Structures are given as C-alpha cells and as structure tokens.
C-alpha cells in the first residue's frame, strides 16, 4: 500500500492548522473521512434523497436498495451469517444500550451478574449500570495487570453460576490492548454465557470475523471506520434478535397496529424504528469499499509498523511514560510527560498542528486502576505516516521547552 495515495483521498489533509500541516493523531476518537464517503453524502442529498421503506416511488426504491446494499456489505465485512443480523443504530453506544436494555428486560433479575473488565469505555459500563440500578444486578470487573493485559485466570474465577452476560472490549482505547477475545468467548461458551464485544476500536484496525469469534453481540461505531457520524452497527446472532423484545418503538418497526394489539416487523426492521440516517448508511458503503481497497492485512501491517516506530521514538524522549505495555498492542498510545498535565500537552501540541486527545478518554475506571488522573493519547489511522510521528515527537520536545524543561 502507498500511504501517500491513501492520504490524497482525504481532503482534510490539505488544511493548515495554525499555519502548519495537520498531524491528525486522534483516530481512536474519530477517523477522518475519504472523499468517496463525503461525495456519497453530497450526491445522495443532491440527487437521490428519499426516505427508505414504505414509499414505492422511484427515489424511495433506489434509496432502499442502496441502504440494504450497505447492510449486505457490512454482513460480508464482518462475516455474519445473515443480513438480518445487522442492525443499524446511532453508534456503538446505542448498540450496547440496545443489548443491555432488551437482554436485561428478558434475562436479568436481582442478584444476577454482569461481567465486564477494568478496560471498558464508559459506554460498555454505564448501560449495564442501569440494570444494576433498576434490577439489582451485580457488575463485576475483571482485573488487568500493570501492562494493561486482562488476567485471564482472574477472569475465569469471576465467572459464576449467576453470570448472565459478559461484555468486553476487543481493543482498549487507552492502552491499545488487543484482548484475546476468541479465548474469552471459548471460556464463556463452555458455561453457556453470551458475550457482547465492544468493537469500537477494533473495527477499523483488525480483521473482524464474528463467525470465527462466535460472539453473540458485536458493536461498531461507523465514524471510527472512516464513515459518517450518526451510524452504528449492532451485530447480533439471529437467535437473540428473535427472542429479545424490541428497543425503540415507532414507525417502521411494526407489523400490524390495532387499538388492542401490536405486532412487530421481522428482522432487521424490528430494531430500526423511525427514520434512519439514510444518507449516512448509504455513505458507509464507501467506507467499507475504502477499507477493502487497501486490504485489512495491509492496514494491520502499516499500523503495526507505525506503532512500533512511535513507541521506540517516544521512549527515547526524556520524561515521557507510555501507559501500559500489553502483549499485543494496536496503534493507541496513551502517555504522560513528567510535570506537564495532559491538557497542557494537548493545547501546546495543537499549536504545532498536532491533534491528540487528553483526559480520561471515557475510561475513569481504567485511569483509577493505573493511578492516573488523565493521560495524553496519540492514536493512529491508516493515513498516518512516520513523518506524523516525527512531528509529534518534535512537538513534545517543544512542549517541554514551553514548560522550561531541558
């Protein structure tokens, strides 16, 4: 792959920040968008716009076909068994809420246990907390070691006869830990416990094969996968979607409505109430094409090389500490600089056109575990280069100068 050809597809890289080229290292937060995705949105709104579903005019049929084409390509992208297992949501957060709510209604009662981990983003904790608050469920946190790796033995010990569901991230948005999900799912399957995987960070960076993983639920945010905002994906095994109750009620998700009785639409519409983000779902098809055109193996190789380069260079800078040292690390690099608060780092780096994130990255539990209030985080996307890492390192040196460190 040629990263310069990839970069040329992203209009944002022609923009200057404070008179300097943009060095975008905040892809874990959200990725930038290739022109094909932006053009698809533009074209759809200009010449193809219609709501999908019920209308039978030309535009509606075309829009519906395109919407369903994305569903089919998502199914292929993550290797699901059927397009009925692909539900479009607002984002991964909504996908997880959908599962917590509907699974909780049906299967969680007082004292039942939900097993998550210390690595989770708030979006894979707060929805389960609702079940703790309303149903008296118990949330258990599987611990990590100081490297940021899940301690599998402890994880096993926390599974009990009361464990009703396991919800776990595929890739930490702080330490970059790639969690051995397949191993976890195998452990869970032996005890017949369903597993939800938060695939927010993994979807743009590693190969996803839900059939091979054998997970029950998999949540994705499309805006992190070079796609538009406002679209998320919930993959769920058909057996669950068939027995779980619907989530949001309204138009589009019903079969028949009378004053006494309502029946629901078949899958996947049962879970897609109201007008969907039509243009955005259609445009996400272009994101999948973009990923496929590069090839996930090439993306993995490129990002691994960049991550190793970044870690090596950052470790050479006096007073920079990398957060976590997991066995298998993706391009998410949280760090601290001795004597400089992450928010100051972020403001000063911005002056050099370097976009990173500072804070707890929606992982307060993890930061508490690591005894950190906040961290700075540089995260890599397929469009990043070694030059980006060099600019980051120079900006960090500059940051230390501003603070009077030698």
């Amino acid at each position, binding site marked *: 792959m040629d990263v310069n050809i990839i970069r040329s597809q992203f209009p944002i890289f022609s923009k200057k920040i*404070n008179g300097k080229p943009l060095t975008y290292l905040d892809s874990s937060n959200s990725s930038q968008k290739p022109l094909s995705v932006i053009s698809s949105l533009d074209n759809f709104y200009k010449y193809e716009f219609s709501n999908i579903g019920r209308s039978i005019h030309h535009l509606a049929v075309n829009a519906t076909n395109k919407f369903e084409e994305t569903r089919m390509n998502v199914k292929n992208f993550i290797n699901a068994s059927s397009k009925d297992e692909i539900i479009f949501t607002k984002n991964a957060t909504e996908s997880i809420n959908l599962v917590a709510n509907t699974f909780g209604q049906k299967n969680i009662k007082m004292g039942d246990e939900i097993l998550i981990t210390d690595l989770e983003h708030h979006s894979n904790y707060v929805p389960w907390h609702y079940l703790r608050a309303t149903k008296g469920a118990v949330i258990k946190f599987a611990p990590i070691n100081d490297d940021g790796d899940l301690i599998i033995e402890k994880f096993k010990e926390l599974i009990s006869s009361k464990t009703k569901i396991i919800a776990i991230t595929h890739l930490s948005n702080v330490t970059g830990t790639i969690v051995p999900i397949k191993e976890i799912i195998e452990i869970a399957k032996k005890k017949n416990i369903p597993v939800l995987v938060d695939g927010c960070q993994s979807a743009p960076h590693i190969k996803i094969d839900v059939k091979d993983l054998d997970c029950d639920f998999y949540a994705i945010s499309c805006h992190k996968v070079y796609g538009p905002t406002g679209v998320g994906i919930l993959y769920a095994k058909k057996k669950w979607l068939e027995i779980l109750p619907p989530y949001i009620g309204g138009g589009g998700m019903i079969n028949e409505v009378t004053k006494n009785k309502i029946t629901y639409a078949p899958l996947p519409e049962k879970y897609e109430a109201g007008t969907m983000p039509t243009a955005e779902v259609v445009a996400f098809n272009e994101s999948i094409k973009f990923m496929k055109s590069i090839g996930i193996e090439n993306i993995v190789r490129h990002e691994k090389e960049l991550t190793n380069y970044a870690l090596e260079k950052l470790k050479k800078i006096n007073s920079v500490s990398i957060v976590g040292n997991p066995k298998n690390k993706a391009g998410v690099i949280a760090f601290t600089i001795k*004597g*400089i*608060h*992450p*928010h*100051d780092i972020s*403001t*000063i780096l911005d*002056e050099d056109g370097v976009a990173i994130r*500072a*804070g*707890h990255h929606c992982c*307060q539990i993890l*930061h508490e575990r690591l005894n950190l*209030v*906040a961290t700075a985080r540089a995260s890599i996307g397929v469009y990043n280069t070694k030059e980006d890492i060099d600019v980051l390192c120079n900006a960090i040196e500059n940051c230390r100068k*501003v*603070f*009077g460190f030698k």
Partner: protein
Amino acid sequence: MDLKELYKEIILEHGKSPRNFGKCKKYTHEAKGHNPLCGDQVQVYLKLNNKKKVEDLSFEGSGCAISIASTSIMTELVKGKSKDIAKKIVFDFLNMIKSTSEIKSNNLDEDQKMKIMSLSGVKQYPMRVKCATLAWHTLTSAIDEKKEEVNTETID
C-alpha cells in the same frame, strides 16, 4: 493565538509551585469543585473571621497548569479581603475571562491587577476557560456555604 500569551512565566511558575496549597488551619468554610470533562478537582478552604474578613484561604486539588496557577493566584489576591469584596473580585475575574480581557476592579492594586491579567490569555482558548474559572466558582460556593459540589458543566 500565541502560546506565550497562555503560558506566561508567572502561570508556569504558579503551576509548578502553587501558593497556599493544603488545608489552612481552622478553616470555617469549604467547597468542592469538579470539571467532569477533564477530571480536574479542587477543594477550597476558607477562614472567615467574625468581621467577615477572609483571614486565610487555601486549596487542594489536581489539574493542569492553568487550573493550578489560576487557583494559586486567586488565593493570593483574595486573602485579607472582606467577604463582599472577595465576591466582587471573583465577579471581575469572570468578567475578564469571558468578555472584556481587561480587569476592571477598584479592589485590587496595580500589582494585583497585573497578576490577575496574566490569566486573560485563556480567553483565546475557549476549551480551557473552565480550567481557569473552576476554583473561582468554588470560592463563591464556599463563601455562600453551598452544600453541593461545583460542576463546570452546570455553570456558565
């Protein structure tokens, strides 16, 4: 925008060596402040004497250089002032950060005005305004004996 306008020497110095850090002796009032967006925490301790004068003022907490420096400078400027004047200084400070960039106050001498003006650069960085204002809101809360924690997301 110029970084030197934000990270002035005096800010970096107060950020590294904050004044009046820790609990002051025999404090009569205290309040907590929290910025949930970045996790900054501040606790302000205040000793008001029977003449309603701020006899002592100190703080504890963690945060960025802007937040620590702003809090440190606040404790220096407000200590020794009457309760009512302390609240006026807070008002003048917030006015400077949010709109005027100038400090208009009859309650501070020229040196003190220079010190408080060192924080005016924050106005150019909207995402950092709350770093600078958290402690000042928390001071008002301590003076007014409000029970609930100050939360930057629920104030202007």
